[in-house]
Structures are given as C-alpha cells and as structure tokens.
C-alpha cells in the first residue's frame, strides 16, 4: 500500500495543488455569481484562505521534491530554472494584458468572471515562480553550509510558514502588522543574502550566463510585483489573494538575493580568471603529485610539469632539458618554440653569469628557480629551475617570455613547487619500480627456499645400533649445504654430507644437482671411493667451471660394526673413541668434486674403514662451523670444535648437536650475521 503511494510525491502534490487552485477559482466564481445575482453565497473568505494555504504547501512540496530529485543541480542549472519560471510567469501575464488590450472596452473586457479567472492564473504563476525560486535559492545559500547558516535558514522557513497563516489575522490587507512582518522578512533576507559562496566556482562564461539569468529574474520579479500591487486596488476581486504576507515577503527575499547575486557576480567577473588560474594550478599540482603507475613512463610527469608551469607563469615558450644516461644534456619537451631559436636561447643562457652550472653536490639554493634577463630579439626573460632527484641533477626546466622581467615572485614560487612535486613523483616512481623488482626477487627466493627445505631430509635413517641428529642453517635465504641418509639394506646405511662452493641461489642449484647425483648413484650401492669417482664424472658435466662441491660419503654397516668412508675435499670428520677416550679428526686425502674433471681424479680420492664400538661418536660438519668468526674475526676452528665435542660425548646425539650449535652461536656473538651455511650431523653408536 505504502509502496503504491510513496514513489510519486511529485505527481500527487502537483495534482493536489491544481485541485486546490481549481477550488479557489470555483469558490470565487461562486461568490461573483452571488454578487451579480444579489444572492449571499454564504462562502466565508476563510475558505479561500485555507485553499490558498493548501495551494502554497502543495507547490512547496512539489518543488522541494522535484529539486531534490534532480541530480543535475549545478548552480547555473538552478538559476536557469528560476529564470525560466519567471519568464513563463512574465510571458503569460503579458499575454493576458495584451489580450485585454485587444479587447479594448468591449463587454467581454469588463466581464468579472474572466477577469477573476485571469487573476487566479497570474496568482498561481507568481506563486510558482516565487516558491520555486525560494527553494532554488535555498540550495545556493546552503552551499558550503555552516551550522549557523543552516539554523538561520530554518528560522527563516519558520518565519515564512507563520507568514503564510498570517492571512487569517489580517485578511490580506496592507496594515501595520503586515508591514511589521514584512520588515522582519526583509531583515532576514538581507542576512541570508550574504551567503554567496558558490559564485567564485563559476567560470568566466558561466558568470556571464548567470548575470543574464539574474537580470531575467529581477525583471520578472519587478514586473510581477508591480502587477500584484495593481491588484490591491482592483475592485473586481472579491477576495484578495495576492496581498499575502508570504507572497510579498518572498518577493522581497527573491529580489534581494537576486540583486546581491547579480552585483557580486558582476564584480567578480574581472577576478574570475585569477580564481580559475588558481584552481587549474591546484588541479595540476594534484596531477603532478599522483604517483605514476608502474609500467608508465616518467616522461608523463615531465609533460604535465611543463604544461602546468607554462600555464601558471603565462610563459611564451618553454622546454625541459635532461641528462641522459651518458650524462649528456638533451632537450626532452619543448613548447611553442622551434629548435633553432631554442638553441639560440640556450647559448644566450649559458653566457649568463647567473645560469646554474651543473653542481656535483646538491645545495639548498641549487634547487631554486632563477629568473634571468636575456638578450634575444624575441625573448627577453627566462626562468631556469633545476630538477633534482635523489640529490642528483636530472635536468632543467626553462621558461621564456617575450617581456622583460616576466616572472614575478608568485610565479617563481609556484614553479618551484611544481618542479619539487614533479621530482618527488619521479623519485617515487623510481623507488616503486625498484621495490616491485625486489619484491619479485624476494618471491622467487621464497620459492627457492621452499624447494631447498624440501631437499633436506625430514628423517634420517638409522637402526638400534646408532642414533643420528642433523642440523642445517643457511646464511642467505637459500644455502649450499646438503646432507642425507639412505638405508641400502637391513644393516647398511649410506650417509652423505656436502657443501657447494659459493653461497645463495647458485649454490642452492648446485646442491640440488648433488642430491640428484646421490640418489642416482646410491641405487647401485657403490663403495665410497667409486661413489666419489662417479659423482665427479657426473658433476664435471654440469657444474660451471669455477664451481666445485666438497662431500664426505659414509657406509655404516651395523652388523660388522664398521664405517667405510671417503672424503672429497670436505672438512675432516671428528671421531670419538669411547674406549680410548680420544676425540680426533679422521685423516684421509681426497680432492673436491668438479676440481679435476678427467680420469685422473680417481688417483686423488681414497677410502678407509674403521670399526666402532658402543659410545663412539662421529661428528660430521660443513666448513661454515669451523670458519664461523667472532667479533674480532677469530675463527671458531677445528680445535674448539674438537674440545666442545669431547666434553659432551657422553650425551645423546641430539644433545651433543645442541651443545655444539649453542657454542658456535655463543662464539660468534649476537651482533654478527652468519655469513656461511652451517650444517652438522652427529652419529652416536650404541
């Protein structure tokens, strides 16, 4: 139900307004009939007043709805709406007058019914014009509103509604109370009419248009007002509707506000270009400060820069010279000038003493704009502004004018600001690009890191004859250390540790190759020496010529209780003999993989076997551990490692490992960043 009713407030109010007006006409016609036929019609004037008030309210509601609904509420649109309504009321009123003029003194011209009907038409149009204008002016007054203005307007509206009902007290006659009310409205109107904040936002052209519209409104209002006054004395009108306080008050308000607007707009005309200029500058500044999107060119900023600077300084010519990568000066953008004249001015400028020479270090005053007088047939003054990015001279902006001393302080200031903002934008753009690049690298490193973490084993194979613990930490996101175990049969375990030369991503790649080699070769259960020879052959094919891999390979047999091992350039293995209570490095020769890439390699790698007993411990490391340095550059070293291990051999493999790692980190200190990969395997025999 509600839905059916609500969407068409406009139509409903319009309809009721027409009905109220028709009722007004009808009531008056009834009266006139009564007068003509000497019959008392018995219709009190209050009936007309009630209908009049209803009519006012409906018109108000209708306009309130239609103006709020209309989205295109630009100032000029609003004023035009008022002016067009005024024109309509004026035109119809003139037509009626013309019609009567044509009728002359005929009987029809004196017909009270027709006269009364036209009176009602004029009344309705005048009301429409006044009420619509009031609502339109409300929009203008409340532009950039403050709380105070809103309150003032609300009070004014209350005053107007009171004046609407005033008719019941004074029966639309011009008495003192009427004048008193009018003065009130007059004072209010003046105080409201100073709210003209919308005027500066009109462009020069729009101002002219609004001046025209306001004159239309002023003319219409004056004419309609005079017409209303003429009705006061007319005798054919049984009930005077137009000597209404609201109508007259609205006349006053509309007229005053229109007059103020008209005058202020008129006086604003000459300064309008300045305001527009400032607005353009603000917009240009905003365009400059918007950071360039990645992928776009920084030349776009320089393009905006030269255009905004030229418009801000009214320059006749301008160009931008920038240093290219080789440090040569080139002209990037030039406006309203051809290259030959540009060259001439460049030469003239270079001779000037105040022309900024390319400095090596940025100083505060170097980034200032410098106005220079030039001796040229066409151009008489120039403004040179250096562009600095990251303390480095990017180039210069040169503006030239055909008048002497063409650049005033304000212009110099605004150009400096423009240049500063453009430089910041370019700098931001460069930083952003760099950041994006870094971000991409970071992402790739994260992927590499994940891959590498998956390369280190989750579990280390062993049986009840020994326990084993492993640890690895990379200096960079990815590292080149590698260890792994593999159970070959029930009692045989292969154990490998490797260290790839170099660090970071390239090392990580080589490490994954090593893992591949290990898994291929271990299938055939090779002896440690054969493993090394085959691995060397394989890696010789795929490692870069300045890369190598060091590795140690162990075969642990838990039945024979033996360890057969080979070392290829890797750091020696620490072994604790529980029976002898000795902890020593196993000595065996062996060359790193990928160093000698031919058949001779087998001569440089060896194989040894030892037997283990319960309580023996084997500590396998990469060189990062022994080469770990403290604050003074002293290495952790083999001896320190041997001592730490020796002191802790009674513990479990995990505990021994923890102790060693703790000692290493304690040794290098908190402030030192690990600069190599650390890996450690501890095997404890049972």
């Amino acid at each position, binding site marked *: 139900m509600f839905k059916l009713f609500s969407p068409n407030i406009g139509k409903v109010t319009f309809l009721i307004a027409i009905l109220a007006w028709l009722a007004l006409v009808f009531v008056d016609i009834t009266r006139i009939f009564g007068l003509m036929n000497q019959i008392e019609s018995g219709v009190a004037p209050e009936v007309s007043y009630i209908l009049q008030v209803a009519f006012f309210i409906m018109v108000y509601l209708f306009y309130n709805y239609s103006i709020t609904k209309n989205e295109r509420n630009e100032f000029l649109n609003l004023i035009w709406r008022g002016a067009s309504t005024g024109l309509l009321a004026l035109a119809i009123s003139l037509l009626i007058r013309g019609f009567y003029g044509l009728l002359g003194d005929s009987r029809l011209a004196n017909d009270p019914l027709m006269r009364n009907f036209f009176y009602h038409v004029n009344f309705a149009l005048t009301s429409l014009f006044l009420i619509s204008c009031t609502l339109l002016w409300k929009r203008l007054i409340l532009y950039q509103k403050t709380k105070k203005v809103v309150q003032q307007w609300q009070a004014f509206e209350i005053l107007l509604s009171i004046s609407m009902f005033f008719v019941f007290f004074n029966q639309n006659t011009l008495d003192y109370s009427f004048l008193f009310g009018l003065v009130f409205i007059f004072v209010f109107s003046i105080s409201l009419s100073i709210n003209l904040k919308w005027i500066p936002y009109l462009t020069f052209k729009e101002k002219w248009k609004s001046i025209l519209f306001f004159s239309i409104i002023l003319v219409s209002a004056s004419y309609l007002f005079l017409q209303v006054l003429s009705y006061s004395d007319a005798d054919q009108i049984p009930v005077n509707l137009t000597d209404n306080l609201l109508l007259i008050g609205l006349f006053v308000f509309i007229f005053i506000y229109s007059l103020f607007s008209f005058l202020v707009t008129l006086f604003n005309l000459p300064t309008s270009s300045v305001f527009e200029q400032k607005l353009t500058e603000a917009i240009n500044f905003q365009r400059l400060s918007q950071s360039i999107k990645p992928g776009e060119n920084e030349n776009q900023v320089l393009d905006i820069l030269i255009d905004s600077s030229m418009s801000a300084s009214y320059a006749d010519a301008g160009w931008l010279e920038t240093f290219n990568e080789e440090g040569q000066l080139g002209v990037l953008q030039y406006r309203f000038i051809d290259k030959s004249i540009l060259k001439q001015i460049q030469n003239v400028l270079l001779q000037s003493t105040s022309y900024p020479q390319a400095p090596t270090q940025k100083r505060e005053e170097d980034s200032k704009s410098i106005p220079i007088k030039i001796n040229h047939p066409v151009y008489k003054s120039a403004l040179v502004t250096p562009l600095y990015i990251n303390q480095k001279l990017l180039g210069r902006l040169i503006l030239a004018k055909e008048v002497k001393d063409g650049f005033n302080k304000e212009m110099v200031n605004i150009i400096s600001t423009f240049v500063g903002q453009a430089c910041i934008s370019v700098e931001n753009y460069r930083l952003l690009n760099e950041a994006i690049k870094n971000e991409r690298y970071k992402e790739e490193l994260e992927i590499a890191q994940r891959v590498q973490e998956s390369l280190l084993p989750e579990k280390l194979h062993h049986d009840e004859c020994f326990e084993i613990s492993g640890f690895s930490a990379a200096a960079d996101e990815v590292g080149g250390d590698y260890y792994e175990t593999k159970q070959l049969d029930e009692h045989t375990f292969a154990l490998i540790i490797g260290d790839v030369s170099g660090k970071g991503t390239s090392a990580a790649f080589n490490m994954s190759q090593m893992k591949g080699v290990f898994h291929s070769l271990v299938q055939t259960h090779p002896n440690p020496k054969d493993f090394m020879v085959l691995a060397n052959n394989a890696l010789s094919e795929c490692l870069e010529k*300045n890369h*190598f891999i060091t590795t140690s390979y162990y075969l642990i047999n838990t039945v024979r209780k033996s360890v057969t091992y080979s070392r290829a*350039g*890797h750091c020696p293995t620490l072994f604790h003999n529980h029976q002898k209570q000795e902890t020593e490095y196993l000595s065996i020769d062996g*060359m790193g993989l990928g*160093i000698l890439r031919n058949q001779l390699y087998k001569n440089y790698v060896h194989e040894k076997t030892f037997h283990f007993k319960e309580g023996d411990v084997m500590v396998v490391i990469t060189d990062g551990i022994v080469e770990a340095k403290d604050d003074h550059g002293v290495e952790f070293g083999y001896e320190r490692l041997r001592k730490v291990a020796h002191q802790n051999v009674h513990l479990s493999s995990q505990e021994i490992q923890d102790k060693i790692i703790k000692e290493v980190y304690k040794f290098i200190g908190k402030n030192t960043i690990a600069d190599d990969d650390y890996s450690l395997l501890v095997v404890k025999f049972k």
Partner: protein
Amino acid sequence: MLKIENIDQEDHVILQLSGEIDASNSVDLDAAIQDILEKGTKRILVDGSQLEYISSAGLGVFMSYLEEFQEKDIQIVIFGLLEKVHQVFVILGLDKLITIKSTEQDALEAML
C-alpha cells in the same frame, strides 16, 4: 677486503694478494689472472703471505684456470700461505694440482 697487485719480474709475474677473498671480490681475482694470461706470461708466482682468508668462491677461481694453465703450459706456484689458508687448499685437495711452497725462493726453484 682484497688488494691485488701485479709485479712484473724478468721472467715471471708476482701476483700479490692481501686481505680476504670471498664471493664478493672473487671476480677481481679472476680479472687479475685474466690480465696476466693476456700478457702471455708463462710463469706466475702467487704471493699469498698477506692472504688471511679464501672462500670456496676464491678457490673456484684458481680451480677454473687449472685446465687453461695446463694447456698453455703455464706454471703457477703459490707461496707464503698462512697455515690456516694453506689448510684450506690441502683439505680441498688443490695442493695436489697447484704447487704450494712456503717461501718465494722455494717457489722460484720449483718452477725450474
């Protein structure tokens, strides 16, 4: 920090290394050796007495030239290495491929 100096002698070049060789400056060492090779020198003496540290990247540089030295019949001898640096060469097995002597005199004799 690595300082590299080339000293031309009558019949050989002395490549003096001081400081530390790591991944960041191993390219400098590479460039220095490349220079010497371009000059056509047949005998290179590497003075490692001021060398405090050499990383795997540094060792990789020496290693990568081994084949070229052999092909072009160029002799290279390193001398005067600190014990811990010498140890690095030994552990890797490079001492088997490059002659390492303790003094310049020994190194010169080794080249004959």
